[in-house]
């Protein structure tokens, strides 16, 4: 674990590095539907960017495109300076899907050991074991390490899935609703963990949520609606710009505005 600090430390500003995610004209088609419509945005490095919007607005599809598991992606999408889906990125992105993608018939430790050995088989076993112990502690599951994942509660299983994504030292963590179904204490602890990982390792987070109160914990926000980005700003800037007290109010304000715009366009036709 100490060895991980031997990697080149990231410069505080990281200005020389390309942004974590850079998209232009990003469009995704799924079956007959265009799920993402020409998105353009950047996700800065070393920060926590929240991806917010109602269910079905395209958050998960956008995340899958960034991770490189989404088919029919057109436009430009660069991740850590490479085209999304590049083999170089496979060890550098930690990805948590909405449903916990772990093996229910393995213990938590066995799950982590397996994914760890896929991530870096050349790493000596003691180092891998230390890594497993570290992530177990980070998601607060050390005492359950030898429980079958299938016997855990939904929230616990989500945390196992998160622990898998934290293995190694990913530069970008793409987390699809990681705090769904968790109690307030755990939610707070996880957000603290995200912030400390971002601060100490310079890792970038892209975290989706449809719970607006989590937005306040992000450095930046991408507000999505129906496959388009409504706003890309810091939380306080959003509140000031829309004159709202909360991000939720700001979001509703922007939605109403967008609806009004499309209505005037239709009547003009």
């Amino acid at each position, binding site marked *: 674990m100490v060895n991980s600090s031997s990697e080149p430390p990231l410069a505080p500003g990281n200005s020389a590095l390309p942004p974590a995610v850079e998209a232009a004209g990003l469009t995704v088609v799924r079956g007959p539907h265009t799920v993402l419509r020409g998105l353009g945005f950047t996700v800065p490095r070393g920060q926590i960017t929240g991806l917010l919007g109602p269910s079905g607005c395209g958050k998960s599809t956008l995340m899958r495109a960034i991770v490189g598991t989404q088919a029919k992606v057109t436009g430009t999408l660069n991740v850590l300076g490479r085209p999304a889906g590049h083999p170089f990125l496979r060890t550098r992105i930690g990805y948590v899907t909405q449903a916990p993608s772990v093996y229910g018939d393995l213990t938590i430790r*066995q799950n982590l050991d397996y994914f760890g050995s896929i991530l870096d088989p050349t790493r000596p076993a003691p180092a891998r074991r230390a890594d497993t112990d570290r992530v177990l502690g980070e998601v607060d599951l050390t005492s359950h390490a030898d429980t*079958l994942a299938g016997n855990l509660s939904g929230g616990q299983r989500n945390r196992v899935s998160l622990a898998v994504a934290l293995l190694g030292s990913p530069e970008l963590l793409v987390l699809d609703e990681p705090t769904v179904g968790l109690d307030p204490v755990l939610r707070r602890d996880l957000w603290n963990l995200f912030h400390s990982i971002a601060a100490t390792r310079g890792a970038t987070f892209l975290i989706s949520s449809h719970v607006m109160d989590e937005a306040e914990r992000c450095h930046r926000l991408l507000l999505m609606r129906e496959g388009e980005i409504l706003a890309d700003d810091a939380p306080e800037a959003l509140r000031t710009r829309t004159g709202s007290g909360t991000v939720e109010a700001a979001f509703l304000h922007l939605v109403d505005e967008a609806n009004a715009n499309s209505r005037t366009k239709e009547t003009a036709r």
Partner: protein
Amino acid sequence: MTTQPATTGTTASTAGIPVSTLNLSRTTATAGRVLRQLRHDPRTIALLMLIPCLMLVLLRYVFDGSPHTFDNIGASLLGIFPLITMFLVTSIATLRERTSGTLERLLAMPLGKADLIAGYALAFGILAIIQSALATGLAVWFLGLDVTGSPWLLLLVALLDALLGTALGLFVSAFAASEFQAVQFMPAVIFPQLLLCGLFTPRPQMHPVLEAVSDVLPMSYAVDAMNEVLRHTDVTATFVRDVLIVAGCALLVLVLGAATLRRRTA
């Protein structure tokens, strides 16, 4: 709609690398993981190991009056059991991998498709060896199955059959959206082969059309190889041909199975 040319490298990264080269430690890690999953499911292991043995015992006493028939059918079944059981186990296991999201996670990680498939083949191959060793040992030493050739050759064919079953199961799981469908593929893929493989009636006695069909089904050669071992003391040219055909089919279907694994899905 603006349809710009894809600059994300989507097509290049999926079409450019056909099947990534095998990584030994990732393959063995995957095989170990599959076996560890099974270890938490002792009932499945027991069923896998005991059912072929029980069927052989049953068969032995069904043909109590005609030991020669038991020799013929028993030897054929030693080749058919591993194929059927490994087909079922693999198709369900890989279907679960696809539906639980673990496959997507693995393919977003630096795991090659070949690593995954070889890992499954290795794990189920080991299981098949134990299963076939038990069944063959029981048949030869306790049930009086009269084999002219070496029982080791029976074991070799059984192993290849198991790999063929694993390959078919893996391939078919790509076309099943649920466990219900996956199980239905068993009669669809296995039963015709079972009927045409020469188990019930020698293939030359079938309708010429059916005989021609049986000529291109791999199970026919698996059963043929078993019968060669049954009747000949040494390794015959026919046996070698049969073994190569079964192995070739297993390899071909494994490659087809690899092609159904996609890093990018809709």
